[in-house]
């Protein structure tokens, strides 16, 4: 892990920032080696969003009402699909154990991995959302609000999902178990995220939604890496 040694900063020997940067860069490098896997996950998002009008009806009013909710649920599902990739591969080949043994704080290393996960899954989803929202006939301002809510919400989904991914390491049941554990916890994110666009459609202000989402994100930024690190140590024992 020579690159990790180079990442040591001057002030603190095993700094949090260095750990985060290293872990994020490492995971991004690994992810870029299998770009097609990332593309498939984003394609999954696109396809799921396109399925709802086919299954329900192409009625414009119905689609406009459903649109933000569908974009959000699909984002949640796409995040769920990519979560096992976060720790499972490293767990299987022993890299995770080495990461846990490093003198750098595990919470920071986990935080870096979550950032990489969001950059590969959440950010593309949020960027694609306005384009897909056009399929639902959403107005420009609604599209902007949906995109903004996804930009704040998808990191939250990655953070909460990481806890579930760590808890299910080495457990039978795979991604279905992960979904069962994570989805109830993501309900508030879904409600406030999709609710922002609904508020704008109803002519109300979306700021309470955004305030709550942002508050949730700040709390999760601190809390989720801690819970995830604890779960990883449980899995490694």
């Amino acid at each position, binding site marked *: 892990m020579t690159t990790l040694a180079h990442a040591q900063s001057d002030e603190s020997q095993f700094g949090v920032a260095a750990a985060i940067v290293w872990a994020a860069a490492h995971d991004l490098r690994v992810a870029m080696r299998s770009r097609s896997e990332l593309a498939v996950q984003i394609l999954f998002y696109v396809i799921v969003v396109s399925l709802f009008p086919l299954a329900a009806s192409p009625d414009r009013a119905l689609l406009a009402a459903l649109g933000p909710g569908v974009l959000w649920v699909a984002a949640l599902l796409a995040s769920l699909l990519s979560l096992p990739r976060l720790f499972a591969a490293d767990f299987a080949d022993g890299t995770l154990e080495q990461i846990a043994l490093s003198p750098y704080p595990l919470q920071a290393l986990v935080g870096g991995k979550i950032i990489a996960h969001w950059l590969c899954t959440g950010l593309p989803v949020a960027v694609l959302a306005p384009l897909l929202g056009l399929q639902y006939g959403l107005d420009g301002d609604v599209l902007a609000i949906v995109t903004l809510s996804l930009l704040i919400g998808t990191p939250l989904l990655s953070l909460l999902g990481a806890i579930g991914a760590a808890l299910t390491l080495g*457990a*039978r049941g795979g991604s279905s*178990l992960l979904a069962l*554990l994570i989805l109830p916890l993501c*309900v508030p994110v879904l*409600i406030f995220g999709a609710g922002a666009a609904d508020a704008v459609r109803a002519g109300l202000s979306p700021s309470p939604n955004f305030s709550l989402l942002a508050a949730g994100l700040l709390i999760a930024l601190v809390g989720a890496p801690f819970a995830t690190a604890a779960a990883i140590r449980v899995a490694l024992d």
Partner: protein
Amino acid sequence: MSFYFFSSPATFFPLARPIAIVFAWLAALCAIAGLWIGFVVAPADAQQGEAYRIIFIHVPAAWMSMFIYVVMAFWSIVALTYNTRLSAMLAQALAPTGAWMTFIALFTGSMWGRPTWGTYWAWDARMTSELILLFLYFGVIALRNAIDDPRRADRACSLLTIVGAVNIPIIYFSVQWWNTLHQGASVSLTAAPRMAMIMLTGMLVMTFAAWFYSIAVALLRLRAIILERERGSAWITGLARA
């Protein structure tokens, strides 16, 4: 003999049985008393007629479903902090009972909703939160079954329970917020009817019945779990030989 004498599976095991029996009898007595109050003493409700009598099981079950989760979370914190087995086993024993209580609350709530508000399921705050609570219970039980090593399962489930416990107020708040937004300021679907003292008394007695029942069943399950998990140890093989 210090308080901590009973904190090992071996010492608590024989104690659990008489405690469970006592609470089982208490539960039966409270249930008889509560049902007597609920069906014989309490009059019909002015607005809901006889249909309101469902609250004598719906509300106790709902309260127990939430209370049991809090107790599970408490023992999970103890298990993680002190690395004890018995507290983790107790949390493991409580989860199915909590899930049953949640199911009863959901079913009876649905049966109550149909005659009074016209629908088996309305996405109101309390019922939706109760549904999510059922998913949380299922998650803890599923994780327990998915991990083979019992001590690893203890720690993972304790973590999950605690994360869930932190989330429950947030979930409830978000669902309630969502519901008021889409409901409008009209009638709250789960507002309890204005209750006479006698109805409240009946509900309280039934809550005690539910509580004592949960204790009895959970302790009985705990005994089974202790035997399953400690079967190699000397105190059990000693019992077998005796």
